[in-house]
């Protein structure tokens, strides 16, 4: 680490501490518990197995016993952490967990100030507390709680607020954040003009985007990462499943703004809701998106237990922000969740008929999904078969009128005749018809129609996707604590319950998933609303108010703005879990709308933007980069929903992984240009174009964003982007006017939502001329470039000219500004 980096790191460290350090005595939850958790809990924490001398510093009582002063006024705790005697010193020197001097001072100050105790912040009730209900913030203007909180903190640290973002940048940011797509140039011009007259036009744009169907598609991507959604099982055979109707339901749920509490209950327990609708049952596909292992030699019970682990841990991360997986094998080392409580939680999910055998990608229970057309077709077939049945029954009521045929045929006919008409095999039907006196009569015609109708019915039924959903067995499966998480080591039996550190289940409620789901969304649950608003905040700012969005427990980060987090959570609940309203609240804040420029001292002091002293600026996720390029070129096909599609992918990716057993056969034309959300996701080898994405094996709420040359190679060379550039070139040549400058301006506007500066235009125009000359000097090169991808070649355009503009579009699509939102 260079000195430069060290000082920057320390600067932000002190920055985040300064408010506490200067202003007030140490706050137990903010300042002391993290120290105890980091240095002491491993041996004096929740984990009974590793606990030493039965001292629990994670509980108030235990801690009190350790800080009680002796006659000399010295507390035992303080004595132990400061002792010079290695035998006395805590933590023992060989653990390498020694407290820093500043931490010791903090503990000393806390004891001196009276040693007030408090539960971990995320387990404290969110409200109604006065500070949450009356969010008047000293120094704020009272207009917007988000902005007041952020500004007051910034001011306290001595930094000025940022100016507003330029309108074009803001509109682009807003469009990409809410829909994953850039504004069209015409819409952009119209909105900019209206904004110039009336700043409140911004809110109308927000509402318009929230109502756009693209909103649900954008929000669904993150939910797919959370739900570990994939179109295949994973593991060796990686069989294809048909969970996509569930994905379409998610899009619809976001678009129709299904309240988040219902969104939750349906996905966790829709099947258990009294008189559950098909949609509610479909929603439970969420829990069945886990991997399925069909590998030969696997032990079924081991598989089954792993599926349940995955389900409950996904729920823990998604709705509780707790790392429950830590308690799979032992008591949690830091958070108040025990090994036993883990398996009590496990019991909720341990009741399905899934037994872990085989790799059926449609392992029951499943929901068969049919389109309206398929439904009516099935009804038509059923009605027709019924008509035939009546005809046949009537004709055969008095026995079979048989003509003279050879004895063998006669025997066959009579045997077939004993089978009721609709159950006869094709051979039996032929045998009967052969014996009829009128082989072309009504009776025979009716019999002949049976087989085609039944084939048609089978084909419709086979085509219908079967979505794996949840259902509980009639008899409860007993859950036992598995020692070390090992299915072969069952211990004591437990029944479904929630951890004791959280509010209890209602008295008398049945111990099932529905009770659990309703408990989760109860306003008294301190975690769910905080976890949710924190994750939603991250969508817009690239970072949660709590950085560790997956962990709001004691080892997670503390919120940078705890008051704001609680206020957002409380209002979210009061708002009846209205996600669109939450999103609106965030994007209409001045904090969201401020300039993203790095400014002066703040840029150095807060490189990670924890204080939110500038607007959010970060690279688009890879899926959005692809959608964006397709939108700029005009290639994007906005068909919604349906089975997944297979757009461009470099040859050999699947077959190399599977030794040639699974070959990628890509789709043509429209299906190569659908939104990224609809791309087929093979779990063992995901689409390489979506770099930095969650791998969809386990629940993922936070993926890191990196910046590598491999990404540059993708956006420069992948067929998706080369085709987009050449089609975008044709678009700007047709729609961008006759002059080069106008065309370059149009291209820039498509991709960056602004007109280039003179300096930028000059660079691009000069490059355009060079490219024209280069393509003129290389006969055939332009034609090669213009044949990349499926899209039809543009007519009436000079090839060299179009190739040159393609180069310009490639350049523009790879600008940092364009890759960034």
């Amino acid at each position, binding site marked *: 680490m260079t000195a430069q*980096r060290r000082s920057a*790191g320390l600067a932000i*460290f002190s920055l985040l501490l300064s408010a506490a350090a200067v202003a007030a005595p140490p706050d137990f939850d903010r300042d002391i518990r993290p120290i105890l958790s980091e240095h002491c809990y491993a041996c004096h924490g929740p984990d009974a197995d590793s606990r030493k001398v039965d001292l629990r510093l994670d509980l108030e009582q235990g801690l009190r016993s350790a800080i009680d002063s002796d006659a000399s006024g010295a507390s035992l705790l303080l004595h132990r952490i400061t002792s010079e005697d290695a035998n006395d010193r805590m933590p023992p020197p060989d653990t390498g967990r020694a407290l*820093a001097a500043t931490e010791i001072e903090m503990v000393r100050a806390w004891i001196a100030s009276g040693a007030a105790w408090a539960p971990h912040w995320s387990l404290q009730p969110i409200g109604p507390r006065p500070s949450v209900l009356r969010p008047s913030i000293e120094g704020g203007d009272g207009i917007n709680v988000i902005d007041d909180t952020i500004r007051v903190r910034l001011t306290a640290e001595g930094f000025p607020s940022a100016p507003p973002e330029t309108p074009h940048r803001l509109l682009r940011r807003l469009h990409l954040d809410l829909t994953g797509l850039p504004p069209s140039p015409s819409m952009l011009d119209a909105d900019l003009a209206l904004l110039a007259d009336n700043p409140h036009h911004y809110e109308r744009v927000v509402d318009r985007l929230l109502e756009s169907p693209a909103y649900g598609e954008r929000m669904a991507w993150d939910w797919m990462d959370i739900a570990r959604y994939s179109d295949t099982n994973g593991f*060796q055979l*990686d069989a294809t499943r048909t969970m996509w109707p569930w994905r379409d339901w998610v899009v619809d749920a976001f678009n129709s703004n299904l309240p988040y509490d219902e969104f939750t209950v349906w996905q966790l327990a829709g099947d258990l809701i009294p008189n559950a609708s098909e949609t509610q049952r479909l929603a439970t596909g969420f829990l069945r998106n886990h991997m399925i*292992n069909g*590998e*030969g030699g*696997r*032990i079924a019970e081991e598989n089954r237990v792993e599926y349940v682990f995955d389900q409950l841990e996904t729920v823990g991360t998604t709705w509780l922000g707790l790392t429950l997986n*830590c308690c799979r094998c032992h008591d949690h080392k830091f958070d108040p969740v025990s090994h036993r409580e883990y398996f009590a939680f496990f019991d909720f999910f341990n009741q399905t008929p899934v037994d872990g055998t085989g790799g059926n990608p449609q392992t029951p229970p499943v929901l068969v999904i049919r389109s309206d057309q398929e439904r009516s077709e099935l009804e038509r077939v059923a009605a027709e078969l019924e008509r035939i049945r009546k005809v046949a029954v009537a004709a055969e009521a008095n026995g079979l009128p048989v003509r003279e045929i050879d004895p063998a045929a006669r025997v066959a006919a009579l045997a077939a005749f004993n089978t009721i008409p609709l159950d006869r095999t094709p051979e039996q039907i032929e045998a009967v018809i052969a014996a009829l006196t009128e082989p072309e009569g009504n009776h025979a015609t009716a019999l002949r129609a049976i087989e085609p109708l039944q084939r048609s019915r089978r084909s419709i039924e086979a085509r219908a996707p079967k979505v794996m959903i949840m259902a509980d067995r009639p008899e409860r499966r007993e859950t036992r604590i598995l020692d070390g998480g090992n299915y*072969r080591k069952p211990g004591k039996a437990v029944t479904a319950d929630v951890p004791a550190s959280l509010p209890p289940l209602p008295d008398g409620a049945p111990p099932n998933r529905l009770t659990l789901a309703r408990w989760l969304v109860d306003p008294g649950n301190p975690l769910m609303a905080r976890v949710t608003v924190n994750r939603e905040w991250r969508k817009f700012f690239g970072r949660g108010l709590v*950085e560790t969005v997956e962990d709001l427990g004691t*080892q997670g*980060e503390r919120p940078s703005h705890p008051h704001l987090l609680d206020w957002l959570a409380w209002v979210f609940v009061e708002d009846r879990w209205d996600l669109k309203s939450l999103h609106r609240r965030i994007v209409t804040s001045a904090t969201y709308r401020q300039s*993203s*420029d*790095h400014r002066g001292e703040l840029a150095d002091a807060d*490189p*990670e933007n924890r204080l939110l002293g500038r607007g959010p*600026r970060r690279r688009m996720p890879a899926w959005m980069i692809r959608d964006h390029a397709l939108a700029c070129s005009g290639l994007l096909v906005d068909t919604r929903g349906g089975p997944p599609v297979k757009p461009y992918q470099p*040859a*050999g990716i699947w077959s190399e992984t*599977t*030794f040639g*057993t699974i070959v990628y056969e890509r789709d043509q034309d429209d299906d190569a240009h659908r939104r990224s959300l609809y791309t087929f996701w093979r779990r*063992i080898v995901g689409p390489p174009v979506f*770099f930095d994405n969650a791998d969809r*094996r*386990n629940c993922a709420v936070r*993926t*890191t*964003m*990196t*910046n*590598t*040359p*491999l990404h*540059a*190679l993708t956006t*420069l060379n992948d067929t998706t982007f*080369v085709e987009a550039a050449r089609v975008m070139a044709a678009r700007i040549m047709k729609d961008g006017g006759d002059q080069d400058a106008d065309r370059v301006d149009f291209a820039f506007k498509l991709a960056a939502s602004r007109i280039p500066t003179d300096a930028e235009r000059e*660079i*691009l125009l000069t*490059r355009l001329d060079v*490219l024209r000359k*280069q393509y003129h000097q*290389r006969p055939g*090169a*332009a*034609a090669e*470039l*213009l044949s*990349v991808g499926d899209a039809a070649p543009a007519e009436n355009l000079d090839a060299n000219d179009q190739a040159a503009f393609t*180069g310009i579009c490639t350049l523009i699509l*790879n*600008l*940092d500004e364009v890759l*960034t939102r």
Partner: protein
Amino acid sequence: MTIPDPIGEHARGITRRTFLGQGSAGVGAAALASMLGLPAASPASGLLGDPVRRSGAHHAPKAKRVIYLFMNGGPTHVDLFDYKPNLARFHGQPIPESYLASKRFSTMTGDPSGKLLLAPMETFRRHGESGAWASALMPHTGAIADELCFLKGMHTEQVNHAPAVTFFLTGSEFPGRPTMGSWLSYGLGSENENLPTFCAMTSVSKGTTCGQIFYEHYWGNGFLPSHHQGVRFRGGGDPVLHLSNPDGVPPEIRRGILDDLARLNHLQLEEHADPEIATRITQYEMAYKMQTSVPELTDLSDEPEHVLALYGPQVRERGTFAYNCLMARRLAERGVRFSQVMHAGWDQHRSLTNELYTQCTDTDQPSAGLVIDLKQRGMLEDTLVVWGGEFGRTPFSQGDFADRPQWGRDHHPYAFTIWMAGGGVKPGITHGASDDLGMDAVEGRVHVHDLQATMLHLLGVDHRRLTHRHQGRDFRLTDVHGKIVPEILL
């Protein structure tokens, strides 16, 4: 800005808070330095973002790099290196119950009681001064036995392929943890400026019936930032995805576009001052460098015939194990820290009498050739070569004993053999042993975590101190286990 530097962080005892959220800002410093035109002595940046940190180790390393020849499928230890005359002696007799106590086998075997012992497929003999045993199936490896260190007391906890391979590579049976190569990229940074730090290559013998798959998580970064992921060098098409310019875009045209891309990005950097823009400029430049360096890497015209001959007849054929072994040496020469060369097809449930032979023919000479080639270049002393699979195979037979062409062995985690060469490992020794039937590791037992700890040690890394904070706890490759095996260290 903060750059992940777990070893340095640990050494100074700085709290995790200072380097949480490294994410996208992780490469900014080095890139910014180059933007500002700092002298060449300032930290250079490795290809995939991390600064070059040659001194990031905890102690002086013996090995600078690793070539891991991963034999996917579970090579049969009792047919290759772990000579058990008693298997021939008791061929066809049921395995004594005393060897089976509470052992778990895959569901294909189920209850192992009464399974019949199976003699080694071929004869064994001793080799070299060390007198190491090797089967006639492995003549080339036998011939270099004096360079090798055999570990015959290996054992693991997993009985099925994917979890067992994952366990070997990440220390956990469940996908989601970083692999060893990622940990080293994260802990030690890059030693070169135009190639990845961690490369993976895969092959399979032609005609193999096994269905094992190379999952991407075998070279995955787990919860480490994704630039620590292994870069797969592919057996067909572009060696690295998207390395070639599209049709109709010759290098000089691309160069011009990239020049102006950098110019325009500089203008934005002036306006925004976001260091991420500087990083992006650097990464695009490195992409271009990689487009030049990889074709040079894969151009074998500079390899003399006698060197190519070391690797055997398949060396010129892309996608073969032999080709990948040669490529691993070329990567090692160019400063790649971890090359993971995986070969599948060792899963002989019913094909010991045929597919095992192909498997050995395809891998024996290239593996030995690689060691010889490294030795001749003076690279063996600081290059650690490891050969081995995820488990061994049962000393008793699977399938129809009466039908010789169907002879096979099932998965066996309780004892198996790997070998190591170079990189600070004692040559010409055998460490550990299994019992007289090859059932249990009884001497010099080495658990997977022990092997990992030892490999990291050779690279100058203390496996207990190479950690990453994730979900509130410090993770490491060896979980909370792992003991270095001192007996094999030089």
